[in-house]
Each structure stands twice: as structure tokens, then as C-alpha cells.
């Protein structure tokens, strides 16, 4: 398989086959990540499509500071989180708290809470939880030391845990 640097080179020369190859290479992984965050595969497909469109529009200025996949992954995750935030805002606007104690789907609460994590914690956590990547692979993808990845994943988990407790979820 052609490496990312060569692919980028072809992309910047507007080689349409390179665009197709890029989409073939990463669509499934991105769609899976977006699907797990959103819990909705149709929306996930839309998010991935938007991600590629956004990338193709700006491919000429891509400097390759991070790998293509990491770059696309970041855009996808952020777009998915934006959708969750938007849903959350609409819910807050239209509904009052329903009851003093109620059964809640933790996965929905956790997905919403993901939006409150800083980008540098959210990305390694999602890579570990959703892509099931090892710390070593995440470190390679994000160009970080393994210990930094471990610490960021832990901080992300702790923050999510505290958010759940603050929201009154009994675990």
C-alpha cells in the first residue's frame, strides 16, 4: 500500500484517484468511530462524508504535521461531538428536568460528556475505547510518548467519571 506522504503528494496535484484511494482506505474506520460516538450509523456516514469534503477542500494546504488518518480522525470526532452538543442544547431548550430520580442510559450521558473533554484527552480515549488501539499505536498515531498517552487516557476517564457523579448517576 502506498504510504501517506506519496498519497498527499498526489492529492496536492489534484489526482482524483488519490482522493478515491484515501476515502477507500479510511472511510470504514472513521465511520465506525463516528457511529460509536453518535450511536447512529446514518449520521455517522454523513459526518464522514463531511469530513472528506472538508479535507478535499483544504488538501492543498495540508502540511503533514500529523498523519492523514489522525487529521481526518480529529475532524470526524469533532464533527460528531458538535452534533451531540447541538442535540443537547435543543434538549435543554425544550425540556425541563423530568423527575427527581429516573433511569438513564449511561451511554447517552457519556457521549454527551465526551464533548466536555479537551481535544488532547478525548482523542486518545476514543482511540483506545472505540478503535481498541494499544497505547503504543495511539502514541505512534499522535506522535506522543506512550506515558503521555496513558496519562491523558486516565485523565479523560477520571473527568468523565466525575461528570457522571456530578450529574447524579449512581454507578
Amino acid at each position, binding site marked *: 500500500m502506498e504510504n501517506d506522504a506519496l498519497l498527499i503528494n498526489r492529492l496536492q496535484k489534484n489526482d482524483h484517484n488519490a482522493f478515491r484511494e484515501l476515502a477507500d482506505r479510511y472511510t470504514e474506520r472513521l465511520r465506525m468511530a463516528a457511529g460509536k460516538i453518535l450511536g447512529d450509523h446514518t449520521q455517522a456516514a454523513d459526518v464522514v462524508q463531511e469530513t472528506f469534503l472538508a479535507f478535499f477542500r483544504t488538501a492543498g494546504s495540508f502540511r503533514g504535521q500529523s498523519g492523514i488518518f489522525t487529521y481526518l480522525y480529529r475532524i470526524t470526532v469533532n464533527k460528531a461531538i458538535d452534533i451531540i452538543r447541538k442535540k443537547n442544547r435543543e434538549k435543554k431548550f425544550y425540556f425541563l428536568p423530568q423527575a427527581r430520580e429516573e433511569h438513564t442510559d*449511561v*451511554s447517552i450521558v457519556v457521549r454527551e460528556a465526551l464533548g466536555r473533554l479537551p481535544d488532547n484527552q478525548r482523542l486518545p480515549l476514543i482511540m483506545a475505547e472505540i478503535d481498541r488501539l*494499544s497505547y503504543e499505536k495511539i502514541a505512534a498515531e499522535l506522535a506522543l510518548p506512550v506515558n503521555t498517552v496513558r496519562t491523558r*487516557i486516565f485523565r479523560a*476517564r477520571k473527568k468523565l*467519571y466525575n461528570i*457522571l457523579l456530578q450529574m447524579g448517576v449512581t*454507578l
Partner: protein
Amino acid sequence: MKNCGYEEMLSAYIDHELNQQESDFIRQHLEVCSGCRKTLKGFTVISRALGGENITAVAKISRRFTLLYILPLLGAAALIVFMLKTPAGKIENFMEKAGNNNNEITYYLKGGYITDNSISAWLALKSINDADKNAQNEKLDIPVFKTLDYIGTSSIFPVAIF
């Protein structure tokens, strides 16, 4: 969350990122530490939820959270009720007179027919003050807090909440 200093190891433990020796240590520690067991349970639930499992838990909406939403709405509702009770003519009439004579204000606030609608009276006076505070204060020669003395505190309550 009780902090033993092993929380980061717990996080790595559920990702299977500890070596055999570290894993054994954590397992032994979990047998004696309820705080770490609770943390591990929390991390595991988060992990399962992110993995797409549907996990149901009981969520208690805290009193503070409820009051935060409910109190301003109650205040706003009370204010609307008070305002709807007051015919517009009375406020205009009052404002016209209030602009002219300090004694008239005292009359309307203290013992006049507007007593039942004292909140409207207060709002009318406030709007005059807001429009041209310095000039009106000189003209009326009464500070706002003095005016409030004429109005029952129960009438002020919804405004204070709002």
C-alpha cells in the same frame, strides 16, 4: 473518589496495558480497597458505554439543579400574573401623576386604590427612575429604597427571584 495513587494504573489495567507484575499487584490491591473497586467499576461502566453497550443507571437530579431551573421560571410566572392583573390605564395614570407630584406617589403607594397592584406601582416608578435617574430623583426627592418601604415585601419577592 478515594485517592490511593493507583487510579492511573486502574485505567491502564482495564486497557490491558499493565505487565504481569503490575496486574497482579492491582488485583491484590482491589481485594482490600473499596475506593479503588468503586473507581474501577466507574471506569468499566464508561468503557462499556463508549463501546456501545446500553447501560441503564439511576440518575438523581440534585436539588440545586432543579431549583436552578425552577425558581427563575416561578419568578417569571409570578411577575406575569401580577402584571396581567393590572389594567394598563392604571399604570399610565399613575405614571402621569407620579411624574408631577411626590405626594401623589405617596398617596398611590400608601393608601390609594393601587395598593393591590403595588408591584405595578413599583415597576412604574422604577421605569421613571431608569429613564432619567438623576433628574427624577431630584424631582421626586425620594430614593428607591424609601419607595420600597411602602410596598409589601411579599410583592417584591417574585421580582427578587427573577
